[in-house]
């Protein structure tokens, strides 16, 4: 009897934690999707109304589209910049340790601090970037006030913030490539570009894939940047799905609807991750 109970006792902290912090919130969220609830009044059962509303909610679909636009800019940019810098930092250059640390620094700085800093850089009249543009003869750009530029501007900022982490991942990947391959290629007269395309890229493919997965999951949770910099504007051009769900939940206390949006969005992320997983398995 004692032998039977002990294993359960040993796993019980995890099970209790799982029930309180995972199973119950998920179950409660699903239950909420069938109700209207503003926290202070009793819940009102509304059946599938929240789901109907979701499919008719133009702003939610715009927020999904915005998130995809963000991912489409952010992921390739992240990979190109991180790989380029990792390649440079993998060479024997002076102050290599300093540069590696410097590129990693934004990763550990608070997201809010970074966004406020970039808000200043992107300022239309007084921002450093526009001042430089005017100096070299270009027109000023409304980085955060022009609906066409706002999301790309946020994507560039997010890349700057996170690139250090991916540089580290790529550096690890680059250091696993056996040097003999390069030596052999050099003997065959391969150029730098050929070595990069034919040896480096195929060899670090798993790392690239990991970066894509991490960037995708991170990108889907885009929140701080638009929340602080633009509030989702101009004209909803930077409202991300997570920001919209947050607004529904904690600005307007539409808890049932926010739970519905959250559930739908979680399913969307799950689908994307499953597709990515399929690719990984195929690759193996």
């Amino acid at each position, binding site marked *: 009897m004692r032998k039977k109970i002990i294993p359960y006792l040993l796993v019980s902290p995890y099970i209790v934690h799982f029930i309180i912090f995972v199973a119950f919130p998920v179950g409660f969220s699903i239950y909420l999707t069938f109700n209207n609830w503003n926290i202070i*009044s009793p819940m009102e059962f509304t059946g599938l109304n929240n789901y109907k509303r979701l499919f008719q909610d133009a702003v939610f679909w715009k927020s999904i589209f915005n998130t995809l636009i963000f991912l489409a800019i952010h992921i390739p940019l992240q990979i190109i910049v991180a790989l380029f810098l990792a390649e440079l930092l993998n060479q024997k250059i002076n102050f290599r340790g300093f540069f590696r640390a410097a590129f990693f620094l934004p990763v550990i700085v608070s997201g809010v601090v970074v966004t406020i800093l970039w808000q200043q850089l992107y300022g239309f009249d007084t921002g450093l970037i526009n001042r430089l543009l005017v100096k070299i003869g270009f027109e000023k750009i409304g980085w955060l006030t022009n609906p066409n530029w706002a999301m790309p501007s946020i994507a560039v900022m997010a890349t700057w913030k996170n690139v250090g982490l991916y540089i580290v991942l790529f550096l690890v990947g680059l250091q696993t490539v056996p040097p003999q391959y390069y030596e052999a290629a050099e003997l065959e007269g391969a150029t730098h570009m050929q070595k990069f395309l034919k040896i480096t890229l195929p060899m670090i493919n798993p790392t690239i894939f990991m970066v894509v997965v991490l960037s995708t999951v991170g990108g889907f949770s885009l929140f701080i940047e638009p929340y602080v910099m633009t509030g989702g504007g101009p004209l909803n051009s930077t409202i991300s799905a997570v920001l919209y769900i947050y607004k529904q939940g*904690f600005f307007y206390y539409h808890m049932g609807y926010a739970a519905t949006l959250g559930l739908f969005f979680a399913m969307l992320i799950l689908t994307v991750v499953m597709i990515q997983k399929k690719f990984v398995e195929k690759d193996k």
Partner: protein
Amino acid sequence: MRTSNFLLLIAIIIIVLSCSSNSHSRRSKIIYWSSNNIEEIEFARYIVDSWNKNNPGDKVTFQPVPEGQSSEEVILAAVVGKTTPDIYSNMWEGDVEAYAEAGTLVALDTLSGFTDFLRERCDSSVIEEVTSLDGHIYQIPWKINPVMLLYNANIVKELGFNTAPRTYSEFFEAAKKFQKDTDGDGYVDRWFGYAEVIVTWWQRFFDFYPLYLAASNGAPLVKSNKAAFNNDAALKVFGFLRELYQKKYFAKERLSARQDVFLDGIIATRFTGSWEISHAEKFKPAGFEYNFSPMPVPDSHKGPVYTYGDPKNIVIFKTCPDPNLAWKFLKFALNEENDLKFLEITNQLPRRKDLNTNPKYASYFKKNPKMEIFAKQAKYVKGTDQSPVLKEVFDIISQEYEACVIYGKKTPQEALNDAEKAVNLLFLK
């Protein structure tokens, strides 16, 4: 079980129970939460000390509303967690209806003497404003901070005006004269005014809403669960603001992160409240002159100029063990003398109809002439309409405001039509 273990268990149970026992039984009779700004804390402390000195058997304790992202969130969390204070004195008028609907507030008109007190303190329009949709009154009108036009008096004089621009035409004329590209780079960098361009719903309290109240003589935004703002006044306000941005008289860039652009002379006007006075007095450069005037109105406007009063009111939560005692305390806190003390300590206006006529307050206004401008405006302020979905209404207006006024994507009429449609849908749900 061994005796020592049993005793240990009992001790733990006693400690846990004593921690979780209802603190009402051991504490003062009434718990009062004030706002958490320094001046209001000082006032709350003064009031509570005065009360407790004369009523040792009915002790009131106060604490500032606990820190949070906003006091509204803290109050909501307290309501949900059933840890509300008995009295809260900084309730935004627009939030009251939702709490009343949820049954968390005491209907004050059921308390003895409340209606007489309210009639003595406020005029009928204020009483109507604070009456909930169910006919009860759940809030005591406490204080206001009317939104007015702050202007740089030196600049306005240089532009050839004796007073601040009063009408839209005068405003445009002054704006045209003042607007400038000072560094010659082809971009305007000196604007006549500035209002926050972000879409956050409450930002409209400082541009669209006070201008709408001014243009419409205090008309509601929603009435009988329907949008009531698609009218000539709103059309004129949207048109006015749109032109200000189109002609670059107002900055489209966010200037709020910079040093104070008003005191720096980068802008000449701002729609704001009396809280600017202490800031300006502290930081204004030598020779800087400023003043306040009513919100600009359409050229054809007749009658007094209304504005948004940003009212904050007092409520008693249903968790209060003795609402009659709470009400007795509040009657004391809101008497003539204590309203004067409130004025002196916080430089905010108590919402009472005799503010301009009661000799008790005359010496304060003599000493603070700029506050007298706000006191005169106080007769013509409105709060918000009673609606449980007011934030959504403001959000919808704000979205249309952005599309029409800031980015010119819609005409004022299209924006108002779309806003009206969306608000009416909100009430259908």
